């Protein structure tokens, strides 16, 4: 302790060391492999050679342009939806949850304990064309007999929204929970309306949480493929599906790696623009 006190400047590095090393060894190193693979040419059987085939990047973007745009669209819609659904919920848990806070948080993440296969089977059961919801509405004549929810963009977007809602509620809750209710009371005492108090006090103070939450829904949503695969159709193919197919079915590792990198860069650029929009908001702080 004494030594540490004399060398305070070393403390942050000590704190960062284990996690940083972990990320370097188990993330950066493998990622560099991916980069090198993307610049190779060849096939599984005959082997790959590093040919610095940079042309693969523009080629991939051109070929899968439509899926890229669709993924970004879905990611954006999902982010907005999760925020609209998640913010009031996180707000309620943080300010009105009382002693049920932990309980409510746990309820939010409960679906993850059941495996996505079971959840999807359940959703398909609930929303089936002739299931008890749509089937009943069709019998009553409320819906056209040919109406369906499954295998539509709506199904995919709702599926992703459902999956990533907890990722939004948790950081929002964390940010809202630390706001001192006294500040809001003070605003009320100064004759601010509830609306004004929310807009002038609560919302600005929760912005770091909004920022973190929107990233935690946007990024995985753009790269998702399970929902599109299980709930979608040909018209809802996302870039994640393409990468997955190239990796696991076509065994086209260079193309798959290149697309992955393009996707990462695309996401980083979106985040950068987003940060500029939320000016003054440095990454999460």
């Amino acid at each position, binding site marked *: 302790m004494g030594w540490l006190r004399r060398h305070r400047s070393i403390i942050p590095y000590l704190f960062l060391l284990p996690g940083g090393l972990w990320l370097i060894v188990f993330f950066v190193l493998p990622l560099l492999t991916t980069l090198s693979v993307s610049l190779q040419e060849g*096939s*599984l*059987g*005959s082997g790959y050679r590093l040919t610095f085939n940079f042309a693969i990047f523009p080629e991939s973007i051109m070929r899968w342009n*439509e*899926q890229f745009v669709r993924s970004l669209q879905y990611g954006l819609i999902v982010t907005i939806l999760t925020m609209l659904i998640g913010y009031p919920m996180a707000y309620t848990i943080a300010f009105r949850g009382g002693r049920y806070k932990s309980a409510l948080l746990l309820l939010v993440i409960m679906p993850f304990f059941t495996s996505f296969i079971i959840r*999807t*089977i359940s959703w*398909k*059961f609930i929303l*089936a*064309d*002739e*299931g008890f919801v749509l*089937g009943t509405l069709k019998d009553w004549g409320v819906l056209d007999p*040919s109406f*369906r929810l*499954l*295998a539509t963009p709506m199904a995919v977007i709702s599926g992703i929204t459902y999956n990533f809602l907890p990722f939004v509620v948790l950081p929002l809750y964390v940010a809202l929970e630390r706001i001192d209710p006294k500040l809001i009371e003070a605003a009320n005492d100064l004759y601010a309306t509830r609306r004004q108090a929310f807009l002038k006090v609560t919302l600005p103070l929760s912005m770091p949480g909004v920022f973190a939450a929107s990233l935690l829904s946007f990024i995985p949503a753009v790269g998702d493929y399970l929902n599109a*695969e*299980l709930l*979608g*159709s*040909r*018209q809802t*193919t996302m870039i994640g*599906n*393409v990468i997955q*197919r190239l990796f*696991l*079915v*076509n065994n*086209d590792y260079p193309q798959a790696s290149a697309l992955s990198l393009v996707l990462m860069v695309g996401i980083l650029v979106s985040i950068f623009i987003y940060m500029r929009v939320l000016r003054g908001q440095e990454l999460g702080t």
Partner: protein
Amino acid sequence: MHDESSIERAIARALRPGRRLSRRRFLRDSGRGAIVAGSALSLPAILAACGIGPAGSTAGSAAPSASNKVVGGGEPAGTLNFANWPLYIDQDDNGKSETLRMFTEATGIEVNYDEKIEDNQSFFGIIQPALAAGEDTGYDLMVITDWLVGNMLRLGFLEEFDVATSVPNFVANAAPKYHDPVYDPDNRHSVPWQSGLTAMAYNPALVSEEITSLKQLFDPAFIEKYSGKIGMFTEMRDTMNLTLLYLGVDPAKATVADAERARDVLMAQAPYVRGYYGNDFAQGLADGSLAITMAWSGDIFQLQFDNPDLKLVVPEEGAILWVDNMTIPKGAQHPNDALAMMDFVYQPEIAAQITEYVNYICPVPAAQEVIRQHAEEADNQDDADYLNAVADSELVFPSEDMLSRTYSYKVLDEDEERQWNELFGEVVQG
């Protein structure tokens, strides 16, 4: 190359009488490292020692020559690491497999049975690095689908064995259809575990016509009526090969030009297709989301318990017979134990036991009688009804006529596989 394999076959044929007895003696001898040159049965070993191993001599093999020898003919080591798909073997109410128990009792071999294979392609992805590095995958026996057998064979990733001497029960008991398949000539690297049909199915409650032909699945004029209720498969091989049958092309003889025509047909059909399904097609058919769909026979057999009206159709044009095979990955530590298991499950009694549980197409026709007998001996009517349903189902014991109308997947070489995947990728992903 060709000569070697015919020499092998000739020797195997010549030695067939009295095979079992001498094989057992041979196993004992070689286990002790005794000199076995006098025994004709050791010929494969000698050939291998002289560097003229018959090994992966099938077309296009890129097998590393160093390990080009036949496995088998040795004493089992007493351990078997067996990778299979979940729920793909009989299990009692305590989750124990009677087949595995009997195997251990009969042979003394302990089985580490691992339900590890979730999917051919991803399982291959998991073991491929070890195989490419020439290392042991940790498995001695694995169940993989025929096209992957073809692929791994091409890459030299499967051990070769002499089916005549090492798996005599296969030779004696397997249906003729399973001998000498296109993906593995002479069964040098594989014997079937279970198989099934890729065909089509429909829900008569939603379809007014009787479905008999692939035209009713592909012809836009016909399927317009069922738009959004048509299901196809996301597995490239299933969908492409079935489409080839619609085009009147034997998949085994298909060219890339044929594959392009298949792509065109599928593109024309795509606007009416609800989705490209994996196993989840079964739920769609069960809940009325799908009216007409590509289907796997085993799933339809199961779905008929939920909805007896559902129908599997082997179309006029034919269907695909897929086969999941027992194979030994290159570098396996206990190949003799793996061969012992292969031979063991080809006894009709054991094959019946597995089929009663998994209900896929049984490669051993004699198992049908065994199951009927089990039905007679059953303690209650429920069990008897169930067993009779299994024995009587054409989806478990297809007739010769039905089997004669089936085709295997085309074995694709690397270039073809890439081209076909790209063509099919356009269909499913735009």
